[in-house]
């Protein structure tokens, strides 16, 4: 019996605001414990929340970027549950009137375009962080994260494979980053993903029993976790067993899913409208303004890079995965005759350099205009491609112009025929065997001679020119 995989994702994204959602404490990752805490976010008796306008704005921007309808009239609710990282013992969230609903994201699965529905996007506050003592029967609470603004994005169960789940997440992350909604760093928890997965016979309408997987803390683990769980469920169904509804935890060490909770514990969150926060009523112009904040999104940019610049789909995909990279390429490509050269350098040398240095392209000292100038120098024959790669290294680390580095190191290409002819004559005289080979029909032998000239000129000889000169000289001899 052929089985179909059905996956829905729940994603939490921390918003890139300066302050928390309901108080003025800094929203900043990595501070010493309990240093970004005030009476409001630690839930002192008597405090009241006041909504951060930037959090609201980013939430709406996110909803619009995910093609959602934005509610003109919504509210905040209290979700009541006890947990030491939940300072008020209720989380301010949105229950039955989320800020955005009925959206979608389009992803490319191979050649096929797939549309994944977005059920809802809502605003809420993050909880604090619990740290567990290694050898003691205690846990520790740090409230720095309590009150950090979040959006929760819930997808429809439209995802059909672990790979699609990863592609969807990558697209979502790119959209969030393009819109400057979040930095989406899974390793810092600013993007977190839980998944629901079930299997059903192909053609069956009703959904099978699902399990929920938590703690998948990287894109790779999302895919691995879902692949593991799919085969686990398939094996069980194949053996005639039934799936029980459970919450599972992805355990990276063993590469398996582990049961966290059997059955759904009786969660009764007792949602009700938060009396401390008046309703959110949005004017049309306000929503339109948020729409205008949305830049060209990754999918549109990918299309433009392919059609406008004539890049292969692969290049367009790599270059648009991050907005900063795409911006960099766009700016460079404007000033060069062949965008593919720019693409090659960015995807090759530049990304390798950035990865090794652990830097973002936005902080690279070499600016796009400088890169374009370098490419220009290759195109007009001032330097060779080989030299260009050395110059590029200097530019990336120092931020100096290509010309400055070339001048400093005397790297201008030698295209003076007289000078090259003199050197070539010397090389021919010193390498009679290579000459004989060449004359005997071994065309490749000329390479050794060109190499010698390059060596003598420290690589500055114009390679096309030197080839031509050597061939001529031998034939003349």
């Amino acid at each position, binding site marked *: 019996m052929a089985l179909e995989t059905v996956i829905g994702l729940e994603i939490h994204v921390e918003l890139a605001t300066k302050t928390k959602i309901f108080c003025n404490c800094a929203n900043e990752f990595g501070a010493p414990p309990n240093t970004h805490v005030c*009476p409001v976010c630690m839930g002192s*008796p008597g405090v009241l*929340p*006041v909504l951060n306008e930037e959090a609201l704005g980013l939430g709406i921007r996110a909803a619009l970027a995910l093609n959602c309808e934005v509610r003109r009239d919504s509210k905040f609710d209290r979700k009541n549950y006890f947990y030491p990282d939940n300072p008020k013992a209720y989380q301010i969230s949105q229950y039955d009137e989320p800020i955005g609903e009925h959206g979608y994201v389009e992803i490319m699965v191979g050649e096929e375009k797939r549309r994944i529905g977005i059920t809802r996007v809502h605003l809420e506050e993050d909880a604090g962080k619990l740290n567990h003592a290694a050898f003691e029967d205690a846990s520790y609470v740090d409230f720095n994260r309590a009150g950090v603004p979040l959006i929760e994005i819930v997808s429809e169960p439209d995802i059909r494979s672990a790979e699609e789940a990863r592609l969807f997440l990558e697209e979502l992350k790119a959209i969030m980053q393009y819109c400057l909604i979040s930095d989406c760093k899974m390793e810092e928890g600013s993007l977190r993903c839980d998944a629901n997965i079930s299997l059903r016979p192909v053609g069956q309408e009703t959904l099978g029993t699902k399990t929920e997987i938590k703690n998948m803390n990287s894109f790779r683990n999302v895919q691995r976790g879902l692949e593991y769980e799919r085969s686990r469920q398939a094996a069980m169904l194949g053996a005639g067993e039934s799936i029980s509804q459970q919450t599972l935890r992805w355990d990276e060490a063993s590469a398996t899913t582990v049961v966290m909770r059997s059955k759904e514990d009786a969660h009764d969150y*007792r949602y009700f409208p938060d009396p401390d926060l008046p309703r959110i009523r949005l004017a049309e112009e306000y929503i339109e303004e948020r729409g205008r904040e949305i830049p060209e999104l990754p999918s549109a940019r990918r299309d433009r890079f392919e059609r406008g610049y004539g890049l292969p789909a692969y290049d367009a995909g790599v270059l648009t995965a991050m907005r900063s990279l795409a911006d960099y390429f766009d700016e460079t490509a404007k000033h060069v005759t062949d965008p593919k050269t720019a693409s090659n350098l960015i995807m090759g040398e530049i990304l390798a350099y950035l990865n090794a240095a652990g830097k973002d392209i936005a902080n690279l000292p070499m600016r796009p205009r400088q890169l374009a100038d370098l490419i220009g120098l290759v195109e007009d024959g001032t330097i060779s491609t080989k030299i260009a790669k050395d110059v590029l290294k200097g530019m990336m680390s120092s931020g100096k112009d290509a010309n400055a580095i070339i001048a400093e190191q005397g790297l201008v290409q030698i295209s003076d025929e007289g000078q090259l002819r003199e050197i070539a004559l010397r090389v021919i005289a010193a390498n009679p065997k290579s000459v004989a080979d060449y004359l005997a029909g071994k065309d490749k032998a000329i390479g050794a001679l060109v190499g010698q000239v390059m060596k003598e000129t420290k690589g500055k000889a114009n390679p096309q020119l030197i080839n031509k000169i050597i061939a001529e000289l031998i034939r003349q001899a």
Partner: protein
Amino acid sequence: MQDLTVGIAQLHDWLKSGDVTSLDLVAASFARIGAIDSAVQAFLTVTEEAALVRAKENAGKTPDGILDGIPFALKDNMATRGVKTTCGSRILEEYIPPYSATVMDRLDAAGGVLVGKLNMDEFAMGSSTENSGFFPTRNPWNLGTVPGGSSGGAAAAVASGMVPYALGSDTGGSIRQPAAYCGVVGLKPTYGRVSRYGLVAYASSLDQIGPLTRTVEDAALVLQAIAGYDHRDSTSVNLPVPDYMTALTGDIRGLRIGLPKDYFAHDMDAGMRKVMDAAMEVLRGLGAELVEVELPHTEYALSAYYLIAPAEASSNLARYDGVRYGFRAKDAENLLDMYNKTRSRGFGTEVKRRILIGTYALSSGYYDAYYKRAQQVRTLIRRDFETAFERVDLVFAPTAPTTAFKLGEKTSDPLTMYLSDIYTIPVNLAGLPAISVPCGLIDGMPAGLQLIGRMFDEATVLRAAHAYEQATEWTGKRPQAIGGQA
């Protein structure tokens, strides 16, 4: 020793003349507290040291504003930085807030001198102050009776001349009912008029801070100081605050006052009926026009209130979990056990009862039947008042069905205790401003007259209450039980 019951304007005049200093007034307050509070038990904390330091700073300086240099006290559910704020609960017995409530900041900025924090029903849940986690407060008019609640400490302190004024909070009548029982003036402003920031929440959509004072004029003066938009409270209203003193013209000719037939239809206590009839006559005599109005959903108000308030409370009081502040049970075996033991021991019976009711009303499967239904009834009650206010400027009612009852008389049955708030609760549900002014004695105990106004129309409420007060001699009457004079 100065008599602190003479009214704020008189105290201010004394300070201005230089004959009396702030230190004198503060010392008078502590002297009075020292003399009688062992009997009345209004204060949970006195801040003598800090108050004297502050008063000395002010000594010899002419007052800047009307409240400058004048002592006051706060119900112990308003946060005071560095000063214990217990909410009348064991669970917060040792709690010292890291910040002050906006009302505290405003009175402080106006030069007021805090002398202490006042007893209350635990988390403001009660109508007699017998639910305090520490001790009951006594009514200065008769130490065997309750001062009302939940702002019982505030009413008793003002009634017995320990402070010229105090702030209380009113969720279902908790300023007005104790004001009536203790023979003082109590004003519940419109919901949103005074910032709730720093008021420890009981039922957030109903809670409102207001003054308890000797006179209507004093209520106007204190309201002036604490009213107005606060960016820290999203439910505080960004509307200009009128000059309330100019409203106190004494002239209410042509003012239309509604008599809700649904309030008087109940079999009202004969003594109370007599006092109310007399008050109506006074108002008529002053030129007001008394008109019968209908508030047909009144009978459902109590039911709605006793679902909404506990529901909100169950959520508001969930934060007392022994993690960040307050009491924590020491002998817990694990986290769940710590929660259960901390909360079971830290909260009193009535608080636990309301948390359970509220939790039930919000729980899955019952939300629509209880909480949502109560919120719908709230809409009907609001509409009742809106309809009435199309015809009248104010609504007239008793503040409470009876005068103060005996200590212990109603503690065994929560429902009869709840019934003492029957006339005050609809006002909170609708968010309206209302005042209680003394309107007579029944068997030697004070009764209160309630005047209810339109949203944000405290000015008319104060005007009518002031005119009534000027025409009668009830205000300023002093209880004999603890010695009529300071």
